[in-house]
């Protein structure tokens, strides 16, 4: 381990300790809830990033996996009394299996075609659940609070939900970090940048895309099961909507696509904006909160196409080049910006 990565490891460990201790400092329930929402959005963004960022396949249908996670654990609990921790794992496995069909039907498509096909798949799943009586149809499913505590993942107090959400995020980040560093990560980068070259040296493109998608589906479904246990109520509109799929992608794109911590940054910014505008303007019932939220999305997409991390790197690149090489300042600055953009596009 070299100096830089050990500093990073130490920094991450310190940040994690602070994050674990945070609920003891914050007593306010609504603030704690905001933190939980941030963690949930971050976890989904990190999971989405595996296929959308590292493999470069922009899925706008991830709500299908989220919904399958939520419905699997909830149905197993309600109909068979199966423990939600087990149900959560089962939901992840089922989502990963279903992602095989998802990949099989969508992977030969590129760019816009892929994105639209994923929307179609998720919409079909939503229509099926909306009309499936056993699964609660449009009315949805309610989880009773008969058992509570860690064994059944139901708590009257919000703090345990915070820790579980944090645990899920750390798990998903760890999985991404491992993928990033092993051969799968290298292959993904290769097939994203130069698909033809990757194929010509014998990389089975579809197989590696599928690995990324299955992992992404697994972790997205864990998030869905967690949502069900936290809200104790799910319906197709809340766990299977296209708006949800788009939010997962948005968090990742906003922060910085294809970077480990980009989705976390994106989740902090997006969720905070969303909740603040809702609290500040949502009461009017006139959609003011939506207008502000949308205007910010547009502004960021237009002015920071590489996401916030990309924008930060460009800025840092300009700064450091100004400090080190005064004579070559303009050229170096341009280079820093181009580098950040390349990074963002990777």
């Amino acid at each position, binding site marked *: 381990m070299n100096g830089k990565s050990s500093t990073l490891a130490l920094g991450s460990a310190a940040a994690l300790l602070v994050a674990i201790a945070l609920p003891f400092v914050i007593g306010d329930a609504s603030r704690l809830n905001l933190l939980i929402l941030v963690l949930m959005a971050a976890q989904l963004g990190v999971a989405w990033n595996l296929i959308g960022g590292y493999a470069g396949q*922009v899925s*706008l249908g991830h709500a299908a996996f989220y919904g399958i996670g939520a419905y699997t654990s909830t149905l197993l609990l309600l109909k068979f009394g199966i423990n939600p921790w087990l149900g959560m794992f089962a939901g992840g496995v089922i989502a990963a299996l279903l992602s095989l069909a998802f990949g099989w*039907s969508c992977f*030969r*498509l590129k*760019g*816009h*075609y892929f*994105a*639209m*096909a994923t*929307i*179609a*798949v998720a*919409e*079909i799943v939503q*229509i*099926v659940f*909306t*009309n499936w009586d056993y699964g609660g149809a449009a009315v949805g499913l309610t989880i009773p609070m008969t058992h509570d505590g860690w064994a059944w993942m139901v708590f009257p107090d919000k703090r345990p939900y915070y820790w579980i959400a944090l645990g899920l995020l750390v798990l998903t980040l760890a999985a991404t970090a491992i993928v990033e560093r092993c051969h799968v990560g290298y292959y993904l980068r290769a097939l994203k940048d130069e698909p033809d070259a990757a194929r010509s040296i014998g990389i089975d493109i579809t197989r590696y895309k599928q690995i990324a998608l299955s992992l992404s589906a697994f972790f997205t479904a864990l998030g869905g099961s967690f949502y069900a246990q936290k809200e104790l109520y799910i319906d197709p509109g809340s766990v299977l909507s296209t708006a949800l799929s*788009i939010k997962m*992608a*948005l968090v990742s*794109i906003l922060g910085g*696509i294809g970077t480990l911590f980009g989705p976390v940054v994106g989740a902090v910014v997006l969720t905070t904006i969303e909740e603040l505008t809702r609290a500040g303007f949502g009461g009017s019932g*006139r*959609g*003011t909160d*939506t*207008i502000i*939220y*949308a*205007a910010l*999305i*547009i502004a*960021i*997409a*237009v002015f920071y*196409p*590489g996401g916030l991390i990309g924008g930060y790197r460009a800025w840092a690149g300009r700064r450091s080049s100004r400090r080190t090489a005064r004579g070559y300042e303009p050229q170096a600055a341009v280079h820093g910006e181009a580098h950040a953009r390349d990074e*963002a*596009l990777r």
Partner: protein
Amino acid sequence: MTAEILLQTLASGVLIGLIYALVAIGLTMIFGVMDIVNFAHGEFMMLGMYASFWMFALFALDPMLTLPLTVLMLFAFGVVLYKLVIRRITNAPMVSQIFTTFGLMILLRGVAQFFWRPDFRSIENSWVSGTVKLGAFQLGRPQLVAGAGAIVVTLAVYFFLHRTKWGAALEATAADKEAAQLMGIDSHKMFALAWGIGAACAGAAGGLLSTFFPIFPEVGANFILIAFVVVNLGGFGSVAGAFWAGILVGVIEVMGGLLLGPEYKMAVVLVVFLAVLMFRPQGLLGKS
């Protein structure tokens, strides 16, 4: 199932399909010329509906009378939107383009809700209200007029693209932006024109729909997904393809509704869409 029911369903499928075609034509033009998928396209249609509604409610002007005005307003809106926002993302990565137009979609819905409330509104007793009896079965007159109007607008766009200098310049930009620019065609002007015409088509569809469809801020959501399907089936960028694919999707939708129940009609459309994408990624009518 009698033959009459079948025929009547087919006819209504063709009529709604003509509207789908009109919405999709605008979308396919924007895509064909500059490779951007406009998620806010359903909202352009929604604005067209509200334009018709307000001219009707405030000045008692019939939607059929104000249709040219609605089309002009939306044309101007499309051009202004291009100049203000879209121009900045012409060379941006696909994800930022998707999220810009997606943001516009939410923004326009929010703006509509802000000014006009989330209520459902409708236009009663317009010139075209009532039904028309054709032998054994009957059809709504607004739907018939809307279908006819959609055909007229489609022909106008088709004529513009293939018979005028501006249309040729637009086609040239769609085929090869750099080469067209070398021939002296300003691609920014062409992009603005594509957004203008694209929005105008959606506005026309909105105006035609306003006589028989509820008007509310989120009405575009019902149409955008179908428009995507139509654009895909017709082949990205093809106006003629979108026209025929629109009719086809309208028919598939109503037949699916008739056979499996209305709650599954959208699912049937989407399954057909995925099946076609898998076997003919260039669309049913697109060239490979």
